[in-house]
């Protein structure tokens, strides 16, 4: 027999993983607790999930230090960059759970629903703390698997199942591409760690160029799929439309944050040697994404589909920060993601609020005359949409401003011009909703969900968008600080 020493050396500094450990344990505890709760008391699980997120947020802040620390034999890194994105994802999760409270009340297996959200969150938190392809890939799969189930949660709704299946198949394809790409990078550098790969690629000889390109393209393909960048975006509209609305809200924000954080780490740590090549690719992808997202959104009649394309458009803008690839650019992308979280969550909260008798207020026409029935909601929706359109002085304007400036300063003037032109095109479909709300007559009777947490969500998001718009400096400063660990 081989010589094995037991016990194995215990991983040092386990406390760095405290947030993940809390989430993992609580998700499993809730899974069991759910069995003992009566059908009318399933709401407790949701509140417990929110409490878990809050506790995790505190834990995250508690364990964060100024620099980068690793644990689990160097396979898990905790730096302000990871912590900041974890806080964003926790916030998104809390919003998503609040949105689900009434929406999912009548579904079966509600308890597991919230547990799956927590597992998805766990996956994303591991992703952003990954400094190597192993942890990253496993976190990504954990997140993806949970989300596939969440998307198809309404089994009785055909399009929900269809959406889940499409997302699953295409997700598997993209995972395959990602893994395939990783094998090439591993082949050249014999390492999974981002930093080691980065160093290995710098030292790699010329003959490896083709293989590196292969690896890079496949890895990028796998990553851009998750953040729905064209032409890997096509799952997005179908999935957004089919998924239960709170899940749509969740996947439109949280996985994008996780995806972009991983994306930044891969680009900055693992692929600096081929920056010229990946910049070229990303410029083309960003341009394509911006055009496709903003133009296709115009033709949509369903607001969830429209928001799917809007997400694609916004993702294109976020990508510009990555193309700039300097401090201003990465910070700009983080600002964008932060602002986008509030804007999108607010809009989706209003969509959820407008549910009526099992049918969601999903068609654009449904918003007709909202200002006459519910002026408060209409005002909040108006603010959020104006912000999405990038009207100054709302948060969305600054988000666009910082990434555009970063792109221009790094010499991507034409991309920025294109982005500006198409953000103007994008205004059309946001303003159309406002037109419906304010200038058309009421067509349908709604019974709005009267729930205080939901109303709070709407108010908080609308206020946040306005406040950041009036005084963007703190958010920008925090995002700049959060880059410690990446840069």
């Amino acid at each position, binding site marked *: 027999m081989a010589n094995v020493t037991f016990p194995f050396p215990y991983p040092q500094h386990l406390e760095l993983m405290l947030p993940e450990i809390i989430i993992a344990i609580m998700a499993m505890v809730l899974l069991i607790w759910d069995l003992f709760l009566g059908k009318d008391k399933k709401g407790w699980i949701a509140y417990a999930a929110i409490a878990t997120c809050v506790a995790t947020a505190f834990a995250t802040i508690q364990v964060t230090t100024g620099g980068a620390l690793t644990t689990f034999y160097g396979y898990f890194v905790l730096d302000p960059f990871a912590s900041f994105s974890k806080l964003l994802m926790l916030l998104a999760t809390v919003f998503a759970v609040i949105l689900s409270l009434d929406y999912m009340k009548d579904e079966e297996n509600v308890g597991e629903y919230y547990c799956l959200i927590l597992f998805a969150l766990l996956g994303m938190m591991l992703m952003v703390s990954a400094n190597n392809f192993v942890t990253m890939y496993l976190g990504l799969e954990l997140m993806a698997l949970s989300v596939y189930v969440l998307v198809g949660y309404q089994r009785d709704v055909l399009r929900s199942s269809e959406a889940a*299946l*499409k997302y699953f*198949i*295409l997700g598997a*394809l*993209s995972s395959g*591409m990602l893994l395939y790409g990783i094998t090439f990078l591993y082949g050249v550098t014999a390492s999974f760690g981002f930093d080691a790969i980065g160093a290995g690629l710098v030292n790699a000889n010329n003959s490896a*160029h*083709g293989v590196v*390109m*292969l690896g890079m*393209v*496949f890895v*990028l*393909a796998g990553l851009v*799929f998750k953040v729905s960048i064209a*032409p*890997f975006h*096509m*799952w997005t*509209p*179908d999935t957004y439309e089919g998924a239960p609305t709170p899940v749509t809200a969740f996947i439109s924000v949280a996985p994008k944050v996780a995806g972009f954080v991983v994306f930044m780490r891969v680009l900055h740590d693992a692929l600096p040697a081929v920056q010229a*090549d990946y910049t*070229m*690719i990303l410029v*083309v992808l960003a341009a394509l994404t911006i055009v*496709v997202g903003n*133009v*296709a*959104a*115009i*033709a*949509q009649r369903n607001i969830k589909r429209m928001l799917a394309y809007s997400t694609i458009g916004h993702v294109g803008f976020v990508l510009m920060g990555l193309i700039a690839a300097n401090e201003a650019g990465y910070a700009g992308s983080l600002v964008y993601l932060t602002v986008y979280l509030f804007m999108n969550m607010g809009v989706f909260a209003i969509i959820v609020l407008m549910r009526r008798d099992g049918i969601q207020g999903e068609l654009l026409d449904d918003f007709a005359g909202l200002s006459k029935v519910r002026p408060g909601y209409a005002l909040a929706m108006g603010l959020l949409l104006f912000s999405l359109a990038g009207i100054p002085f709302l948060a969305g304007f600054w988000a666009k401003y910082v990434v555009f400036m970063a792109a221009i300063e790094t010499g991507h003037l034409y991309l920025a011009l294109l982005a500006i032109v198409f953000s103007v*095109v994008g205004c059309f479909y946001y303003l159309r909703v406002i037109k419906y709300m304010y200038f058309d007559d009421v067509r349908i009777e709604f019974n709005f969900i009267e729930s205080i947490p939901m109303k709070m969500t709407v108010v908080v998001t609308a206020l946040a968008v306005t406040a950041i718009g009036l*005084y963007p*400096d703190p958010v920008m400063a925090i995002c700049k600080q959060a880059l410690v660990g990446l840069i």
Partner: protein
Amino acid sequence: MGETITTLNTLELLAIPALPLIAALAAGLFGWALKETLTHWITCLAVIAAAALSIDIFVQVLDGASFYGNFWTWMLSDGFIVPIGMMIDPLTAIMMITVTIVSACVHIYTIGYMHGDPGYSRFFSYISAFTFSMLVLVMGNNFFTLFFGWEAVGLFSYLLIGFWFKREPANYAALKAFIVNRVGDFGFLIGVLATWYYFGTVDYHQVFAAVSSFVLEGHTLNFLGWEMDAITFICLALFIGAMGKSGQVPLHVWLPDSMEGPTPISALIHAATMVTAGVFMVARLSPMFEFSETALAAVTLVGALTAWMCATIGLVQNDIKRVIAYSTCSQLGYMFVACGVSAYSAGIFHLMTHAYFKSLLFLAAGSVIHAVLAEQDIRKMGQLRKYMPITYVTMLIAALALSGIPPFAGFWSKDLIIEAAMVRDMGWVSDVAYYALLSGVVMTAFYTFRMFFLTFHNTDRVPAETKAHVHESPKVITVPLMILAIGAFGSGMWGVYALDITNPEVINGFFGNALFVMDAHNPLMELEHEPHHAFYLSMPFWMAIGGIGLAFVFYFKESAMPAKLASTFSGVHAFLLNKWYWDELYEKIFLRPAQCLGTFFWQKADLAIIDKGMIHGGIVDSVLAGAAKLRRMQTGMVYHYAYGMVIGVFGLLTWLMLKA
């Protein structure tokens, strides 16, 4: 950034503009839920509290306290730093008490005046928000806050003139005010931007500190082929803004029309506060204006012309509010002359006294209008003193103050301005100003008492059906009148004797370093050297007495003389009655061509090129077609999507390989 100097409580300072703002938001956003009573309680209390705090600040400033500092930086973009901060010195403090006290009186007055109006809470929201904007304007420590306040007060002025938006004249008047002010504001914006361009900062202290060396360096610029000093350019541009805001010729045309708004607005915005912003600005920026002789001459000339011209128009107007409105223009002219001849402290002094007596005049006029069922024509009034004694007495105080009869407030400040204009030697400019102002005094006294006698004396011409309603106004209206009457009576003596407001002898006198005057031409300093004379030796005093006497003869009792005079000089009378034909002139020069141009662009550019050419068959169509095409590409088939992904990877890879 400038150093922070704090001998005042920051929180207290922040509360002064914050209270009206919060009250405005509460009344504006939740007015529908609040009852009328609650709305006016909230706003009135907030403004009264702001007034009390301002007085407290004023007292501390008298003891030598001051404040200078930034609270936060609002925008950082390529070195363009916009700090938001405050600068509290005697000039600011005196503006603060004036603004908040008048505003508090107007708030209380409004309770009675606007009672039952459907827009009750909206009105309170607007006036509180206006008070906030005005406070920002005066309290700011840089050009940006000045600009913000400048535009915000303009906005609320527009909203309030057009407050009764269902009345067509009100809408037109609001538009006129807004558009004319745009012209001025454009100049103002150029001035602010030029300041930033040349000095690299918008902070008052930094700019003022750099002015003298800047002038020595001799920067010039070529403006439309006209070579001029940079400092002159900046000052003139800023002064164009002041002309618009403060109703100076030729941008005065909006001010009389603004009387379409509710009377409390006329008192607050178009007499006491907003229109004086221009004067305040020139005084605030005295360290810049002092370095440009040209700019000072322009200020003096424009002020003198306005003072004289508007006084002539005021002689023949029949609308009670319009008489006072032209008087306001004219008095603002006096203040500008004071600034132009470097007697800034006299200008600000007149600003303060004018704020009290002119707002009193307006509010009293409002009380009259209220009593006679919204009739504003003084030819349909008369003998009202019997019905409304309090209004009568308070208006008499205001009229005496405006005419410049000692010991009422107006005398002290106006006398000082005229003397300063006499003493200051600017060649023909100061001579013109002096005689214009002096003749203005006669006219001022005449039109004021013409209006006064026609309203309260003369014969009773009130129509029978309204007569039944005529009565003294309720307490909420008369109490503010009485408070303001105290100011109209005593603020002049208070300024001269208690504050020693205009004494330039002591460098650390009341205004201290807040105003800057070059020693080379300081008219007040020269006046100090001359022996003081009693009021009966003062020329303006006798001019005013003469004006009042003339009015007495003409209008105290019904007489045929005015009509006879008017028919004898029918040309002059028509010329004055039609306000020197300014409106007609503007219509010919600007309105018609603008309309033609607008129609041209609408028909040719908008309809023909953009709508037909670009939308149908251009950008919009191609975007829509693209959207439809993209929508069709989204087939819903998984293998199509997968196909897309594979093609994507293939395309990128091939591109990279071919490049390598």
